[in-house]
């Protein structure tokens, strides 16, 4: 979405193709038109992601006015509708409130409403529920899920919560140290992981359905420093399957099954 602060962040290369158009090539002007309109984003901390000194109504109608050219009056009415859509009770009155007057869960609902205001084709949710309680987390994810089916929006969820992925997601990309290490459908990734890091993640989280007799596997060591990545495969110092080749060559994504790719020389030896 080209929101990396510059300096220090620079997108060095690659392509981001959105509907056949490379987003890294277009002008800032065109990008601004896409942001909020075609691609919208939800952030991790709703409390800090909403402007504290502006009413919810203004914050909601802003992008409506910008991308859909609504006048102030209609945008205000639309804002109320959006709040109702995301399940905020008493929307007519509460739309005049400031963000701090809402609870964390409600604030995230407002963020969702804001993101959906222009019917984007793509919604990016960056750790959308890490700062809220589990019961509220379930509500929010159900909400996103329902809206997704209702409006046909594609959703990218960025998260470290493996349970959440299992429940709501169709396809998974597993990333380690800035690179994609495995990609495939949710069933395949959870059922037959083909990268030792994915497998390590799966077996190191405690599970609700398995008792305390189960021993957690532990991924030894620490996540690497991104400024000084290990040579070869970035995961090799922590990998139980590492061979000499792993420290010299960097594995590329290879097909290991139908629509299932893994970046590991020993993907065939990864057994659940």
């Amino acid at each position, binding site marked *: 979405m080209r929101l990396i602060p510059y300096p220090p962040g620079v997108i060095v290369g690659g392509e981001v193709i959105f509907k056949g158009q490379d987003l890294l090539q277009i002008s800032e002007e065109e990008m601004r038109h896409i942001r909020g309109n075609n691609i919208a984003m939800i952030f991790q901390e709703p409390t800090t992601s909403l402007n504290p000194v502006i009413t919810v109504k203004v914050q909601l109608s802003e992008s409506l006015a910008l991308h859909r050219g609504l006048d102030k009056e209609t945008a205000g009415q639309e804002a109320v509708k959006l709040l109702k859509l995301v399940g905020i009770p008493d929307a007519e009155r509460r739309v005049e409130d400031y963000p701090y007057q809402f*609870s*964390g*869960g*409600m604030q995230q609902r407002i963020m969702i409403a804001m993101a959906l205001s222009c019917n984007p084709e793509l919604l990016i949710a960056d750790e959308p529920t890490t700062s809220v*309680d*589990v*019961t*509220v*987390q*379930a*509500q929010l994810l*159900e909400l996103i899920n329902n809206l997704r089916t209702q409006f046909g929006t594609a959703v990218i969820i960025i998260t*470290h*919560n*493996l*349970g*959440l*992925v*299992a*429940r*709501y997601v169709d396809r998974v990309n597993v990333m380690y140290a800035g690179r994609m290490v495995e990609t495939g459908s*949710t*069933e395949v990734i*959870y*059922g037959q992981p083909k990268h030792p890091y994915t497998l*390590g*993640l*799966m077996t*190191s*989280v*405690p*599970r*609700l*359905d398995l*008792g*305390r007799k*189960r*021993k*957690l*596997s*532990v*991924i*030894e060591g*620490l*996540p690497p420093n991104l400024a000084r990545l290990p040579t070869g495969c970035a995961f090799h110092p922590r990998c139980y399957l590492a061979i000499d080749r792993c420290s010299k060559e960097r594995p590329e994504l290879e097909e290991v099954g139908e629509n299932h790719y893994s970046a590991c020389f020993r993907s065939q030896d990864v057994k659940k």
Partner: protein
Amino acid sequence: MAGNNHLIDVENLVMYFPVTAGVLRRKVADVKAVDDVSFFIKKGETLGLVGESGCGKTTTGRCILQLYKATAGKVLFEGKDLCTLHGENLRRARRNMQLIFQDPYASLNPRMTAGDIVGEPMVVHGLVKSGEYKEQVAQLLRMVELEPRMAVRYPHEFSGGQRQRLGIARALSVRPSFIVCDEPVSALDVSIQAQVISLLMRLREELHLTYLFIAHDLSVVRHISDRVVVMYLGKLMEIADSDELYANPVHPYTQALLSAVPIPDPEVDRQRKRILLTGDVPSPVNPPSGCHFHPRCQRTGDECREQEPELKLVGNEHWVACHRV
């Protein structure tokens, strides 16, 4: 009451925090953080304490350790009431009970070396002389799987997981029998969580510790606890053996809470029944009447609105506070 195998007995614990307003700081209301809570912890067991934010689980832990002076109620440690202790006596009692904190960044003094952080409790309790704890510190660091040569480093030179190990070493340095673990892994990376959980479990076996394990992550609590207490808005909802509670939750809140946690396995998870709660947790300043859970409960009835449910025994050491069971 205090059975011989109980290490901690919490009896009718109440903790209100006053809400003040105006220049004169007049009390206008109370935050009812913990409201009439009773339970016990057996020697050598791990009691999990779960609930959503604002349910009073952290406050309960702090009250047991006397970091907050409870508004009412008793906390018995091996049958002795801690709430009546003051000054020097209380300070000495602290040797037996320690705390592991959630935030491994804020809980270590940035101006002290790792060695001094781990050694300080021993100095405070007169176990060693100041500056003569090198050997003990080295031993403690080895115990938490850190290298003794790291003792000269400052906290910022450690990673999050290593800092949490320092926090554990500090708690262990005075050889306590009871440790309150307040969300010890929730600030850590997923891959680091498993390391710390395994460490805590190993230490418990080796040193015969008793844990009160406070967490909002039900999967973690399930993994480490023998028995589990579920709290909601300062009240106890359900207490049961860990396996029993997860297999057979009785309270509607517990059921909803468990169903809200997805299992990281799509095949298992997609077969589970889901209960979706409506609304947020109400403010503990002004909790709902009767059963605190009734506005969000699907099985609510008139008596839930009017009367507070008592804890009822529904099975082997399985207690539930609900009218509808």
